[in-house]
């Protein structure tokens, strides 16, 4: 791979005056194709790291400017008045809204996505599987603003029936109480996000399930497993880390989704006791909504960037956690089967 690591070759031959065609010992002179490819690969890796570092540095630098001038507590203030003098802003509402709406989306989307993936990979007859997979792909092709419009114009007025039902049965929890009004709440955002992340989660799961080793499936079948038991014994354990990765990809998208949330949510800097009450906000939605009014003179923009940095860190933590979960049971993974 690398030219500077000495090739583990037998004792170096007497230096040959020229690279004769028959010589096999021209180890120090790798072929041009290898050199070009190694350079390209290394270059791509370096560019990625540089870009990441540049983004992180930019965010941190801008955020520091904003944070030093902030009069409020950045983590606990329920207010976003970054243009005021002195500026007062905090991310409590945004962090809450972002995490809660994404968690709702995950809870709804992951089981459905796994179900769709299993159906396409293991249950559906081939004639049905291909169009169904295509339909799921199509969901991914819808622009997020279109989801936002659909959410605002269709989902919001039509989801109230579900809200009333939930109020009937789950109002006692306090967090699922419906107090009337437009359903421009974090819960509706969660439903919308669930639909939006469904294709990515389901597609990744499907590809993983398809690669589940036939050998293990046959082992389960030969023991007298039913189709569901085959899936339980060989497909799901094999696909476990794939499901986690797929979910994290979906979560990453849900955390950062902007336009759809901004179109549906009725924003406020309050944490409502019930998830069904309109109000709240998310990092991305707040940046989109406030960016135009953020004055260039004050620290409005820097404050928004500070909130972006928090989103960046949350996403990083989520991905790190996912890797930890995957690595924890590596010994048992299907990789060495």
């Amino acid at each position, binding site marked *: 791979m690398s030219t500077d690591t000495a090739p583990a070759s037998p004792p170096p031959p007497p230096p040959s005056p020229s690279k004769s065609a028959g010589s096999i010992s021209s180890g120090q002179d790798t072929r041009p194709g290898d050199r070009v490819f190694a350079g390209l690969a290394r270059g791509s890796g370096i560019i990625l790291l540089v870009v990441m570092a540049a983004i992180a540095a930019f965010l941190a630098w801008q955020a520091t400017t904003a944070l030093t001038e902030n009069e409020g507590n950045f983590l606990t203030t329920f207010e976003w008045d970054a243009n005021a003098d002195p500026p007062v802003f905090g991310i409590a509402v945004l962090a809450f809204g972002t995490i809660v709406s994404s968690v709702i989306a995950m809870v709804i989307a992951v089981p459905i996505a796994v179900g769709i993936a299993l159906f396409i990979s293991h249950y559906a007859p081939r004639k049905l599987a291909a169009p169904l997979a295509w339909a799921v792909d199509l969901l991914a092709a819808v622009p997020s603003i279109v989801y936002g419009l659909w959410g605002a114009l269709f989902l919001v007025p039509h989801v109230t029936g579900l809200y009333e039902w939930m109020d009937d049965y789950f109002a006692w929890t306090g967090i699922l109480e419906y107090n009337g009004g437009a359903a421009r709440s974090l819960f509706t955002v969660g439903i919308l996000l669930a639909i939006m992340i469904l294709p990515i989660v389901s597609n990744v799961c499907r590809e993983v399930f398809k690669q589940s080793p036939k050998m293990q499936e046959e082992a389960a*079948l030969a*023991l*007298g*497993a*039913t189709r569901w038991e085959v899936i339980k014994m060989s497909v799901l*354990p094999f696909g476990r880390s794939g499901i986690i990765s797929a979910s994290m990809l979906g979560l990453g998208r849900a955390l950062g989704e902007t336009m759809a949330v901004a179109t549906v949510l009725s924003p406020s800097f309050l944490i409502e006791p019930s998830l069904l009450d309109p109000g709240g906000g998310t990092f991305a939605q707040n940046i989109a909504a406030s960016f135009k009014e953020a004055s260039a003179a004050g620290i409005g923009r820097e404050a928004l960037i500070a909130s972006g940095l928090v989103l960046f860190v949350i996403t990083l933590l989520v991905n790190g956690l996912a890797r930890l979960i995957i690595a924890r049971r590596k010994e048992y993974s299907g990789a060495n*089967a």
Partner: protein
Amino acid sequence: MAKRIDISGLSAYYGSHRAIDDISMSVEPRSVTAFIGPSGCGKSTFLRTLNRMHEVTPGGRVEGKVLLDNEDLYGSGVDPVSVRRTIGMVFQRPNPFPTMSIYDNVAAGLRLNGKYKKSDLDGVVEKSLKGANLWNEVKDRLNKPGSGLSGGQQQRLCIARAIAVEPQVLLMDEPCSALDPISTLAIEDLVGELKSQFTIVIVTHNMQQAARVSDRTAFFNLSAVGQPGKLIEIDDTERIFSNPTVQATEDYISGRFG
């Protein structure tokens, strides 16, 4: 615990392609029957029709009868899942469940049958691992993953998994072809021991192996590539290897074919 198999007029298809044609034969209980023949002659396909594994391949279809002590495996109302619980199978490449421990691998079949009591399971797991001559090697690491064992140990683990449910018949599809000679010997010895309890059918490419382990040998052949495989003859192993009735069998076992 061991039953006889009577096959009559059995043909198997992949889609419209006929892989084996009109096979009739009997497999005696508590004996080892070996299937030999060139690649592509359908012996593995035939083996897989005996526990209804053939039909899980897309397009897989079977005609004819397989009687397990006079009960037709392909009769209407017979659940292929329960057929496979009665007739165990060991595959060409060792395929323990990689996400399960050694213990769980052996217990997998029992758990499918709804046996969950820990004390029962412990006993069966130990008995099956002993039965597969693996107990002494793994008794201290039953909770380690089965994929950490060597190839030969994994294959014996698969045999333990198959015999744990006390099947009537044990089908083995070239169980030693991925193993080294020492592991192969261990499996062959094991086959010799298991035949006192089970009806065993073994597919093998290795004619010495067929001669060593089996009581009866069936020779399969195909007339040309793309043609369905046929049963040429079945007889006592000794006779097949010393004095076969059909010329093709003698050509094959003495290395003159084609």
